[in-house]
């Protein structure tokens, strides 16, 4: 058994790094856009969360997801807990199932991310139904699609970068 100090040690540099990523995602979420682009804005907080749960599942967990979601609720003056619940579920699914997709083709991974983003929107939608807030169904479809496309582009760029790094290393 490992001593407690090592497993609970907080890596300050990594923490600030992650916090900065979430902050940037939140800024992107509330920055003013032309009205017709609003529907296409993907949930950047969820995307950052999926990225971190995918590549750093040891340091990012459902509690981080909860905190990020709660802060996002405060930021947007929405019902407290709606994004927290959605992000917790997304983080859980991602940590639980992403290891099986490590060797899957890129398209498969993107479909998985799309499914996660859908789950995210559906949970938020259900909460809005519960609290009697209105909402369109369009948001449910468009934003996750844009998010999945962004993820696909990001993954390709990441692959190219890593291959370039390998070539230069060799």
């Amino acid at each position, binding site marked *: 058994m490992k001593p407690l100090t090592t497993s609970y040690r907080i890596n300050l540099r990594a923490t600030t790094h992650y916090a900065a990523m979430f902050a940037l995602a939140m800024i992107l*979420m509330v920055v003013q856009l032309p009205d017709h682009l609003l529907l296409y804005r993907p949930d950047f907080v969820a995307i950052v969360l999926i990225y971190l749960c995918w590549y750093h599942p040891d340091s990012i967990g*459902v509690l981080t997801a909860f905190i990020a979601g709660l*802060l996002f609720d405060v930021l947007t*003056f929405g019902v407290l807990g709606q994004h927290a*619940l959605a992000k917790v579920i997304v983080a859980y699914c991602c940590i639980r199932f992403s290891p099986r997709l490590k060797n899957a083709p890129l398209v498969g991974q993107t479909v998985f991310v799309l499914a996660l983003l859908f789950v995210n929107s559906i949970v938020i939608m259900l909460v809005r139904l519960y*609290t009697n807030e*209105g909402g369109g169904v369009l948001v449910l479809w468009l934003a996750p699609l844009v998010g999945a496309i962004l993820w696909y582009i990001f993954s390709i760029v990441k692959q190219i970068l890593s291959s370039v790094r390998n070539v230069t290393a060799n």
Partner: protein
Amino acid sequence: MKNISSSSTQKLDLRMAFAAALAMMLIVLESNSDVLHSVRTALFFVVKPVVQVAQVPSHINNTLQRNFADRERLRQRISTITQENNELRKRVNELENQELRSSWLAELLEVREKIEYPVLPANLIAVQLLPMAHKVVLDRGSQQQVYVGQPVLDQRGLIGQVTEVTLNESAVTLITDTNHSVPVRVQRNGLLAIAHGLGFRDQLLVSGLRTNQDVEVGDILITSGLDSRFPSGYPVAEITSIERNLNASFAEISATPLTTVDLDYEVLMVWNNTINSLNTLPSVSLNEASNN
């Protein structure tokens, strides 16, 4: 190896159950009471930098537009404003006459003088438009006795109402938010209706008017005051289209709000709540109110 992984997934399941339960508890608490108000106020300090940084691009855009507005456009604007000013001055003269006459009548009828609501100017510090939630943030909060449900307007018409208050900021839900409705009246003939937000900044849905009722494109909708939340008589929207389907009993009417808010914009917060305004009036407005 297998043991370790299964125990870690168990831990994950537990944490997930805990966090999800906590989130659901928050949602239920939020929708039934306002005990989480202080939590929100405290957490807002954490995210305030994000709010401020997120406004930088719009600030830059606004300054650029302001500084590079060309001469012709400025001249045009001045001429329209002058024209408007002349018209308004004429209206004011007429109204002053009217007021004199109505005060005579009021004296005759022993009607109480019209209540003037205390107002407080506030600045818009952030605009947050999500597809479903249209909100703006003002720089006045519970320290200035702002309360939830307080109407917010500007010189052109109704903007929305306060839905969240923190110490020094308050969030206003715009009338275009999908979750917002205002009881209105057609200014021309007093017909009652309700204007619902649709999540589009330039569109409201007007319901409650029958197909055979007298409404026209261009009619102005004003607040009816029937909700006892918004003071009556403030302009809200202008009707832009009416569809009368003979099979339906109600007409499908859409309207455009008379105001569009932007950053660095000054708005007015109105104290319409009598209970609140009795003991918590802002000092400036209190003097004005007592003078009246």
